[in-house]
């Protein structure tokens, strides 16, 4: 058990060095994708804002979902963590909008477009996640992990803050039985969340 932290350290070091090497070669690929990402994110933001004004009767039901604080300070040094979080956020938001109990206060066309847009976001982010964070890479690593005895496996506790936030949104929708007001509130909340990540995407220009 005592060798675990050592192994973790060694693995992290190796990952870091490999990541540096890969980052050099990946950056050319990702410059283009970052441009696409910014554009798609902006389009999604506009989509989420494009609707009739927020109905007044829904103001009563408004709830604070408590967006996790760390995303409000997007000057975080670890751009990699933000990218991961952005990827997860895109998938979670996509999941919410894919629930087919969505009654259209919002046109069918917009719903489809936002699903397209969020899917694109997730796709572009996934491509540029660095070594070890990309979905394909993780699948391969997990396969390698499985072969090891269970003591040697490196634990990867996931960051649950973002999940808790989306869980609150999901529970709210279920509680309110997917009413129109609930959907309006959720739409505004997700727009708010996406806006913070959009600021991050704009920062990627400087990369």
């Amino acid at each position, binding site marked *: 058990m005592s060798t675990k932290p050592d192994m973790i350290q060694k693995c992290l070091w190796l990952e870091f060095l490999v990541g540096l090497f890969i980052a050099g070669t990946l950056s050319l*690929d990702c410059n283009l994708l970052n*441009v696409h990402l910014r554009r798609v994110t902006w389009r999604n933001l506009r989509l989420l804002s494009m609707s009739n004004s927020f109905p007044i009767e829904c103001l009563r039901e408004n709830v604070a979902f408590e967006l996790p604080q760390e995303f409000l300070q997007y000057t975080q040094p670890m751009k990699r963590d933000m990218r991961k979080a952005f990827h997860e956020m895109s998938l979670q938001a996509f*999941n919410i909008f894919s629930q087919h109990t969505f009654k259209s206060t919002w046109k069918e066309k917009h719903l489809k477009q936002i699903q397209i*847009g969020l*899917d694109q976001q997730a796709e572009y982010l996934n491509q540029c996640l660095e070594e070890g964070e990309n979905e394909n890479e993780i699948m391969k690593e997990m396969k390698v992990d499985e072969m090891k005895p269970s003591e040697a496996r490196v634990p*990867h*506790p996931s960051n649950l803050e973002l*999940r808790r936030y989306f869980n609150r949104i999901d529970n709210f929708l279920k509680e309110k039985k997917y009413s129109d007001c609930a959907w309006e509130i959720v739409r505004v909340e997700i727009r708010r969340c996406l806006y913070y990540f959009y600021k991050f995407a704009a920062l990627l220009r400087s990369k």
Partner: protein
Amino acid sequence: MVALLGAMTLVLVAVAPWVLPVAAGGKNLKSYQKVEVDIIDDNFILQWNRSDESLRSVTFSFDYQKSGTDNWIKLPGCQNITSTKCNFSSVKLNVYEEIKLRIRAEKENTSSWYEVDPFTPYNKAQIGPPEVHLEAEDKAIMINISPPGTKNSVMWALDGSGFRYSLVIWKNSSSGEEEIENIYSIHKIYKLLPETTYCLKVKAALPMAWKVGIYGPVYCIKTTVENKLPPPENIQVSVQNESYVLKWDYAYANVTFQVQWLHAFLKRNPVNHSYKWKQMPNCENVKTTQCVFPQNIFPKGIYFLRVQASDGNNTSFWSEEIKFDTEIQAFLLPPVLKVRSTSDSLHIYIGAPEQSGSKPVNQDYPLTYEIIFWENTSNAERKIFKEKTDFIVPNLKPLTVYCVKARAHTMDEKWNKSSAFGDVVFVKTKPGNASNIWLIAGIGTVSITILAVIYVVKVLLRCINYVFFPSLKPSSNIDEYFSEQPLKNLLLSTSEEQIEKCFIIENISTIATVEETNQTDEDHKKYSSQNCQDSGNYSNEDESESKTSEELQQDFV
């Protein structure tokens, strides 16, 4: 003393009932050490060991406590159990919050609690086997995987779009497995043999949460007889003049084709009734192996396309699906050229093309430009690559017409896309003679300016000399009357200002007398100086007057 003893016994009596069962419970504590919690999808499986087998009359109960609260809640389905195993499904638990469990062993009205280490259910959860539905074609198998857990799963409520699957497929008749990883719920395996039985097993994974599930049961299916018409192959999309061109290969003639498209996002979270391929309107029953459709046929996004052949009686199976991103594959419009010519070079400016509607995005992209130019009369083309948008092509012939065209390439290795060539620009280089004339004229103007500058400098120097270093020749009149030396002395001493004035005045008045006696030189000097002083005294009044006027002025100031 007695009171003390009494108090002590009282205390002992009070404490005893607490102490004794603890001592007794100590044995019970040891009787179950490890409580293992396994979570598969929504099922919590609790297992523990009972080290002391003789204690068969012990019953176990479980309570749970949510983090942040103090009360223990009874766990339904795990109360008063005699065996060492218990199942419950996630009650109204928040799977992302930590919970604590405690287990109690009851024996003849004595019980004690043992707390299990707190854990977060989501982190401990494992992914169960997914459900698989298969459909066979002649050389392909279509797989439809349902996500693990039930439809209203609490554990995977937020992960619906995050599941990825891996499968292992093998031929029933032979050994040799093939593993396919990281696929979506709906997947098609191509390049199989017809009329063969294939078996496969599937497991689910959540890459972003670093979870891998366990393999499900093995499913087998037999591929059908080979179809008369093979499906089209080698499908590619390219862009031409504001529309997309879809091309494919087909071995046989006299067939018509049709094209279908699908939103790519439906593969992430397919729900059967919305996972529908749609017909491409411009491409129904086309006879050629290509089809052109306008750019505005669907909104920007990622799509899948597939093609099918038909000869009237039979239809082929669908071709392999290609992924197509309208953003990445179709964004490059040809650049706009502006060319200026000199006699032996062309100055080229590359501008962004005008895009209708959306923001001009091209300046964001890292692009390389390929410029091809040739003389109008010959066919020999010269190609250069530049990343700047403003540059000069040198070493050209004068008075010739050159044709220039350019296109843009992305600097990406992965998406090696290029725009079409822009319009050809015709430009004629300026005549060489003309340039010679310009050269001569230039030289001429330069030399004239140099001469002018020299002249001006000369004049300036003269002025300077005149002002600061004046020539010491006196006027001719004075020359007649004076020997040089004393006059020189007198004149040289004019450097002192006030005294200078005095001297001149005095000397002029005594001009006639100086010549006669040299001796009187000193005298006359003195005289002059004295006079200067006198005149100084004289002018004291004036000075004082001027002083007072000065003072007055100062007062006013």
